[in-house]
């Protein structure tokens, strides 16, 4: 094993990365989001997508949906590290339940005229995107779906005059009658 002289055991791990969607139920109090984000940056975990808002205002509960990547050991660590935070009620790995629905909303602005404009509108229709703003030279489409669908729609809009995109990030919920 050839490694530079160091006081630490430097080792590369080659386990393949996995992408997981985590739902985290937290007490909605000042700083709670900073704690969660600080955990990810402080321990070098990835955040692919983060969505948060209060979901039960009576009980001051917020639901955070995080999409993260890492080796299986790192994903397990992330869940435990989140779970031990004082204001965290529950952490559910939606990917492991295999029974979750994930959705994202995006607003996509496209600028163009003539054939491009017609093509954009036709594709939007095929993707069930709605027109929520229009001028003679632009549209804003609203599209809902899983991340792949939205990525695909954005890719198709690119040559047709894509100006900008605003996305909510992923929200997830389990199928069936039970809550998290």
């Amino acid at each position, binding site marked *: 094993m050839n490694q*530079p002289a160091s006081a630490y*055991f430097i080792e590369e791990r080659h386990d393949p990365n996995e992408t997981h969607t985590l739902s985290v139920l937290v*007490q909605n109090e*000042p700083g709670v989001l*900073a704690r969660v984000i600080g955990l990810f940056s402080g321990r070098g975990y990835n955040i692919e997508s983060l969505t948060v808002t209060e979901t039960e205002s009576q009980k001051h509960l917020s639901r955070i949906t995080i999409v993260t990547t890492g080796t299986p*050991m790192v994903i397990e*660590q992330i869940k*435990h590290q989140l779970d031990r935070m*004082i*204001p965290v009620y529950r952490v559910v790995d939606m990917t492991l339940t295999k029974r979750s629905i994930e959705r994202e909303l995006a607003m996509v602005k496209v600028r163009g005229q003539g054939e491009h404009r017609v093509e954009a509108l036709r594709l939007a229709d095929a993707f069930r995107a709605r027109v929520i703003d229009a001028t003679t030279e632009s549209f804003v489409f609203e599209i809902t779906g899983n991340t792949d669908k939205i990525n695909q729609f954005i890719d198709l809009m690119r040559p047709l005059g894509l100006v900008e995109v605003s996305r909510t990030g992923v929200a997830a919920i389990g199928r069936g009658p039970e809550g998290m």
Partner: protein
Amino acid sequence: MSDKSHDPNQMTGAAMIVRALIDHGVTDIFGYPGGAVLPIYDEIFQQSEVQHILVRHEQGAGHAAEGYARSTGKPGVALVTSGPGATNMVTPLTDALMDSIPLVCISGQVPTHLIGNDAFQECDTVGITRPCTKHNWLVRDVNDLAKVLHEAFYVATTGRPGPVLVDVPKDVQFATGTYHPPRKSDVHRSYAPRVKGDATQIRKAVALLAGAKRPVIYSGGGVINSGPEATRLLRELVEVTGFPITSTLMGLGAYPASGKSWLGMLGMHGTYEANMTMHDCDVMLCVGARFDDRITGRVDAFSPGSKKIHIDIDPSSINKNIRVDVPIIGDCGNILGDILQVFKAEAKKPDVKAWWQQIAQWRARNSLYYRKSNDVILPQHAIQSLFEATRGKDTYITTEVGQHQMWAAQFYGFEEPHRWMTSGGLGTMGYGLPAAVGVQVAHPDSLVIDIAGDASVQMTMQEMSTAVQYELPIKIFILNNQYMGMVRQWQQLLHGNRLSHSYSEAMPDFVKLAEAYGGVGIQVHKPGDLDGAIQEMISVKRPVLFDCRVASLENCFPMIPSGKAHNEMLLPEQANDEATAKAFAGGKALV
């Protein structure tokens, strides 16, 4: 409506803080006043139940509170002002987080209407301390203060203990509100650490233990944190099973060093027998330790043939570095009790005679060997002499960080828990002297010794003044080799002996320095004078700086070189230039 002016629970925020300390049984706090905590200091002045120890630097308050906590099992309390007072607490808070020490820090903050304004001595204290506390709070309403203070004590002391911080703006300290004594509803409903271990997992663990041929028990600081019952049960388990036991730096004293099953400390500077036993075992029982990188060595070669049982109260410690076979989440004491009960009812003592014979062969390698000298004091010899001189006495040991710390762990035998205070996780140079102050406050009649290095001790030397002010007869036993010894050792072994900035060119005269503080200075050069000087140090009932001049280039062995496994230790008799060069080969050649 009742007349609120006669309600004894109506009081200012500052008064609530002192009241809460009293309600939580706090008798001593460590702190430093400043603008944003003056109302609290005014309340402290007007009462006598809580004694305040004035330190010389807030970092000292934090480490003193840590020493207090570790030597008593009670939470340590520190009180600091806003801005620099709070930022100076970052090191002790991080230290306490890494070593799971219950610490409650109360910090002053600028008045709420000035927060965010870059006011004088303002900083984002909760933002800065968020990653170095178990939890922290900014209290904006005096009517939340009692609840938060009670929750702070609860969070600090339950589950995996740790530091917490409560930031209290000055206007909240002045405001009047309603206090209430501690009650259950003060705590977040989302916080419920698990105490009891899973019964199925406990049965699996017992089955593994009962079938073991080459077992080892590897215990850590969690056993000590769990309390005296956990220590008692650990000792009973060793007795009932006949298994060998080793421990981490943090866990020393849970099993007595004089016990027949004791292997010594394990890890980077652990004994050969402890590390070989870990490497070759077939069943490992890890109790309240966390497979830290100083313990495991190369992780993919760590104890390759063993089934591993891991008891820990913190689920995030499980499978963090090393995959284990039987994780049991809960309190060490509780789970050890359950394991013992099932073991005694259902298992018979495994035959580990052959295993002990193997261990005896490893032990015969005498991995802590060093060459004594008549001319110069060897640091290992100094610690052995200190140990002999204090054996059987009511002694507490703290340390700084570096070679002296490892030698203390190797050569000082701890018989009881809570007697050994060292910065394990964070490795904070400057920890030991203020920690000794805290220990001595908690145990005024005991012998409290900081085994120090000449570099570390200068980081928090100012707390000598605290020791003198409060007549705390701490003994600062400095192994003075005029180097940052551990840095120099690594430079010698790994960086071609280029001793970049690890030599202290301008060493103070420690004897004069002690006298300048109003303490006592002792200096010793010759091995023949050592025992007498140590006796003198012990008999003096004042703070002592003991300048023990030791061999300057001694290295700390045995040692697991980086990137190596437990069975690739470098032993002292092998540590000639050629073997060392080979062991550390890969990066840079050795001179």
